[in-house]
């Protein structure tokens, strides 16, 4: 073989020790840190993302017609349905860059529309929108808010915590001075969504003023939903693992399947340990990450096992350790390259995204690294031990005889029956030789 052979199996004890240590870290942190940091998906409650943003523009409309306002990236657009028919007016932030300019432009645009700049110098590009847009304007003022641009003066997380009391969990989202907070309330009293949201709004507006609170996102999960989600998630993981196991069993021998499943369980628990250790929030996207990693890590293991299976009848002069070393080395560049491309693709998401998707991306990156490690070092070692125990996979004279028997009478397989697909394949390969 042209490729260099790495002594993979030599590291088997180091690999197992490392895995054991990492698993232990996971278990210890689970008990030390008090279990999972459950998201509201799994633990009924209420979560809102709120931005404290100064009021920038105030708009009222006193005319008879219908004026609908929308904001997108600081560009203000109006749809006016009046005596002139339906008109569409656009006020790009590029042209009207400050609140003063925008207010002036809006004032002249439609009769009866009055716009007041509450913070005249505020840049329009910082305009943010929460719920309620597009909005139909009327004589009660519509307030548009702009993100806080004052870098020296902003509300800190501690101030927010003291306003909301100890029961609320508060987190800062993105840049601190933008004053975006993720606030979570447990719902122990079984309150309704509107009660919780009213209560939070009252707390916030009492402190920061009604007009400067922009609700960016709001999630409410009732107790019933979270309990069905837990059982649903467990079902998903179990069904997926069972089906995958069946497939490998069908395509490979049992020894491969066992080694693969142990590797997979190992990867899953390492990932769970990582989530627990870093107190990452467990939500339904975590389940998605877990399952994707299960699929992905198996993907790696299968490529390697496939190589071992393929090499076994060809390299009969090697010991089982040499066989494994050769096979892993042959597929090493593929495993590394594929893992790298996946990390390349997912890493930007871990950096640029926020919230659940960012967590998903972080978990995926970790999972891929773990997968690359376990499929190259751990899985081959496990396979070696399992097949040694079973004594049916070592290239002993008996095994050699088995290989020779295949083309002659493939149905009389002595040890473990080779699945149909593989049988066809080995037959084909034999012919080629």
């Amino acid at each position: 073989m042209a490729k260099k052979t790495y002594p993979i199996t030599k590291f088997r004890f180091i690999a197992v020790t490392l895995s054991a240590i990492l698993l232990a870290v996971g278990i210890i942190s689970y008990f030390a840190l008090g279990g999972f940091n459950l998201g509201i998906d799994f633990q009924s409650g209420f979560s809102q993302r709120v931005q404290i943003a100064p009021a920038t523009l105030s708009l009222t409309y006193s005319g008879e017609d219908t004026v609908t306002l929308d904001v997108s990236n600081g560009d203000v657009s109006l749809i006016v349905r009046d005596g002139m028919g339906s008109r569409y007016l656009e006020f790009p932030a590029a042209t009207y860059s400050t609140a003063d300019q925008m207010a002036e432009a809006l004032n002249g645009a439609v009769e009866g529309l009055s716009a007041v700049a509450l913070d005249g110098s505020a840049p329009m590009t910082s305009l943010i929108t929460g719920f309620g847009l597009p909005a139909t304007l009327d004589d009660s003022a519509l307030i548009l808010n702009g993100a806080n641009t004052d870098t020296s003066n902003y509300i800190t997380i501690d101030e927010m915590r003291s306003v909301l009391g100890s029961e609320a969990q508060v987190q800062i989202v993105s840049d601190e001075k933008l004053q975006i907070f993720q606030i979570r309330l447990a719902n122990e009293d079984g309150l309704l969504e509107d009660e919780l949201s009213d209560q939070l709004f009252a707390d916030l507006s009492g402190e920061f003023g009604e007009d400067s609170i922009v609700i960016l996102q709001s999630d409410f999960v009732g107790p019933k939903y979270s309990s069905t989600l837990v059982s649903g998630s467990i079902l998903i993981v179990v069904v997926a693992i069972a089906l995958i196991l069946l497939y490998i069993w069908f395509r490979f021998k049992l020894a491969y399947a066992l080694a693969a499943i142990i590797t997979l369980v190992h990867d899953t628990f390492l990932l769970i340990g990582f989530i627990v250790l870093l107190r990452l929030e467990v939500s339904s996207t975590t389940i998605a990450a877990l399952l994707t990693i299960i699929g992905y890590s198996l993907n790696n293991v299968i490529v390697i096992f496939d190589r071992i299976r393929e090499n076994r009848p060809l390299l009969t002069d090697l010991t089982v350790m040499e066989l494994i070393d050769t096979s892993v080395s042959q597929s090493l560049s593929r495993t590394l390259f594929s893992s790298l491309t996946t990390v390349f693709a997912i890493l930007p998401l871990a950096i640029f995204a926020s919230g659940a998707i960012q967590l998903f991306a972080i978990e995926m990156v970790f999972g891929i690294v773990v997968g690359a490690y376990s499929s190259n070092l751990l899985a081959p070692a496990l396979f070696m031990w399992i097949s040694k125990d079973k004594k049916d996979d070592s290239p002993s004279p008996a095994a050699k005889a088995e290989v020779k028997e295949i083309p002659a009478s493939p149905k009389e397989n002595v040890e473990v029956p080779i699945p149909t697909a593989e049988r066809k394949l080995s037959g084909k390969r034999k012919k080629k030789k």
Partner: protein
Amino acid sequence: MKKRGRLVVVLLVAVVCGIFLYPTVRWYAFVPQETKDLATGSMIQIREYAQGQASRGLRELKDMFYEDPDTDVPDEYSFLIDVAKDNYKNMKSDVPKTWTLENLFRGFYTEKDLFDTIENEYRTELIDLKTLSGRILQLGLDLRGGMSILLEADVAAYEEKHSESASSSEVAELISEDIAILNERIDQFGVSEPNIRKQGSDQILIEIPGAADPERVNSFLKGKGSLTFQIVDEELTSELNTYFAANPSEIYSDSGQLMQPDFLPAGKIATAYYVNDEYGLDELASYVVLDEEIGLDGIHITNASVGTNAITAQPTVNFELDSEGGELFYKLTSTHTGERMAVVQDGKVKAMATITEGIRNNVQITGFDQDEASDLSVTLKTAALPIELIVVSQQAVGASLGEDTVEAGLIAILVGLALVFIFMIVIYKGSGIYADIALLFNLVILISVLSAFNLTLTLTSIAGLVLTVGMAVDANVIILERIKEELSLGKSAESSVKAGFAKAFWTIMDANVTTIIAALVLSQLGSGSIKGFANTLAVGIVSSMFNALFVVKLMYDASLSGKNPRLSISWRKK
């Protein structure tokens, strides 16, 4: 398969993708935002808009006609000429050579006819676009802003109220009735049209794109103010109908609202009387003037049914009121005996009946045929849901957060794509370019399949998309590594490629099937947001296998079979 045959298959896939993608591209690139807003609104809004535009158009044409009847028909109304031509032919008169306004007006039987033609033009355009919007790749609520609410039947409250237990099939039926009622109430929702779906046997999922206003949603769920009883003013009603018949362009304002003529005194409002038309929409029958004061709010109705009058055998509509409603209704009916009372839903008159006596709790209305009676009983039932609903979960996302997410997602996809692109070329040189082309084609297939199946693009499906970008080149990597090995054994380029593909085939199959299994389980058993991710991943992997084993193979075969066969797979000198 022969090369040409495979090329045909690849081209066919490309064409099918193009067909699938066309509506999406057209919608996002060529339809102006204003029209999008209108077309995604409810049918009611579309009708209001079309009627408003028709009123405006008719008025404009009339003004121009009074000024100078010989003015040419403006370009924007040229569609009227075709209709007028047909009308001339039908009337067996000569089609005029020049199209002045006078000739155009002569081409229509009545002013109403002209109005209808203009309305039809606007409506058809929007309805076509609405149909288009149903066939495109939609952004999920988490990306464009909006609200989704999962509601569940409050079985306990129902059983307590009716003091009997409800079986699960009964609950499922009640939930279906609830959905029918909520759909009736959609009209009052304004800017955007909510999507109401049954989920499982006892849950309802409501998705409202755009304005996520919890207060409006609450009133929508409670149905308050959607159904009222008001007293009819006969004298003004006949006056109004005469007036509107004489002035069809004065009926609707440009926003499609019924105009309130000046002769109506304060406290009286003009409304339209609707019956259901064949489109399932309300069709205008006539106009009615009502007392603005609401006699009774429909939330007091506890039950409604269709019956038969024992003596006259006429169909009747019976409904019951709660005690407070009974008091109010008695006051209303006893002071207005002999007058007509209108059942008003969302500002539109649905039925009218003469009050014969003061009535308290059990009300019987007659004077309809069987169909009208059952329609009315449905309308009355819409005042209260047959089974109350509790909020199981509620998610709302403001539009600007959605915009930011889309932006971050796009950046992530582009950066990831760029990194993978560069990596493949650095490692595999020319073959890397093949893999990159396959990767792009893979994204096109993926997005077109998502549009074809009307799947929405959510936050999680962006994650699936990103992951697919990374994993899609995996199959290529497996093949290329194999080819490299074969080459290093001293085989020729062509046989190395052949052997590389052959040996990699089952490896790729085995490796990807496991991921597909995981994705399929997720998409079948996962909750809403997870489904999007799983679907994207599953489709992405299947199409990446197609690309690696079929499209890339074709590229190699083409480049190796020419006069100057070359295989570029590494920067290293051999």
